[in-house]
């Protein structure tokens, strides 16, 4: 085999191994795998439908206020979760076990694929609260603008 062909074969083999590595674990695959029903729910792994108690506890007050305000009406859409009052939710924000009980019910409900829209709305509230203090360098602002534009037609439906 002449040198150019040998180089070609080596390069092809290297290229294919790189490709296999990419195909093996596409981003986002992990999140979807976790949704298989019947599995024990690990709330430390994505997808994140709600803030964990620890995450919520660290937030600045304005983030907490926004989160609570938007979370409350959305919790009413979660089946098998007893109605949660504003007072109960505020108390849960100060007490790990109460927060965890609500969070677990939400995660259990989100195992049902029919709940996907509601669960994504819940997830979006978390992202919105984080976004209040996220880094706003030019690159991030541009990405935010593009995402906002792509979401607009969806909302107008």
């Amino acid at each position, binding site marked *: 085999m002449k040198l150019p062909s040998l180089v070609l074969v080596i*390069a092809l083999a290297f290229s294919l191994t790189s490709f296999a590595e990419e195909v093996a674990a596409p981003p986002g695959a992990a999140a979807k795998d976790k949704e298989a029903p019947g599995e024990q729910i690990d709330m430390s792994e994505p997808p*994140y439908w709600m803030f964990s108690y620890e995450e919520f506890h*660290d937030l600045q007050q304005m983030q907490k206020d926004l989160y609570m305000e938007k979370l409350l009406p959305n919790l009413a859409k979660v089946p098998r979760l007893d109605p949660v009052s504003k007072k109960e939710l505020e108390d849960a924000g100060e007490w790990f076990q109460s927060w965890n009980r609500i969070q677990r019910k939400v995660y259990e409900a989100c195992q049902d694929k029919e709940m996907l829209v509601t669960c994504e709305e819940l997830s979006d509230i978390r992202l919105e609260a984080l976004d209040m203090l996220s880094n706003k*360098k030019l690159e991030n602002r541009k990405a935010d603008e593009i995402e906002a534009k792509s979401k607009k037609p969806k909302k107008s439906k």
Partner: protein
Amino acid sequence: MLLYSGMKTNWKLFIAIIVFSEIGYSSMCSNNVARSSTYFIPKMSDYCSGSTPCPKFRRQVRMQGSGIMPGNKLLTYTGKKLKMGSCGTAFGASGACLIPFISVAADPRYYRMGDIIQMPSMKGKVIQLPNGRAMVHPGYFVVQDTGGAIKGRNRFDFFTGTYGANSLANSFGTRAQADMRMTDVNDCDPHKGFTVVRRGSGNYQNSLLAIEDSLRNSGNSRMVASVEKTAGGAR
């Protein structure tokens, strides 16, 4: 045989295609290698001699999103001035005060705030901090921020305090040692290999303690508060 002769005549073309496709794949990095960049908060005194924000500083604030003014105030790109209290940098999306070379912005769809990114190649590296002190890096970073362009499981934006990407003093910047550079998002060098320590998992407390030790040993006890806030969670 026909294929072989074709390859023989067009081998330069084939190699060119493979080289270009290789560049394409490498820009994606494998899932356990960080696609990294850095961000910073400009400090007014580094850009202006007077007591009011000069055009050069304002330009940086527009680019970076915010800047530190005298009296621990933060000037945002919208012109708002925020009091930062005891936080000498800025608050990240997590609500915690950002720590140079420890805090990292990540995609909140993949990470909870407070998750730890372990990067073994960084352990033991000496980092020059913006406050003039040196820190021996623990090899751990804490997810404390997010950003609109930071998308994907292995996409991270490292906070470098007041050091810009091109600053000579920036240990993660464009002029840093090759095995510490974090500025090129398409660079998939093995030194960016990482694992995740989820908040609340078995190794979590030990990882946080290692970060606290590094900060204390480098005389940055003030920054420990931000890590302790994450460690506490006050259950």
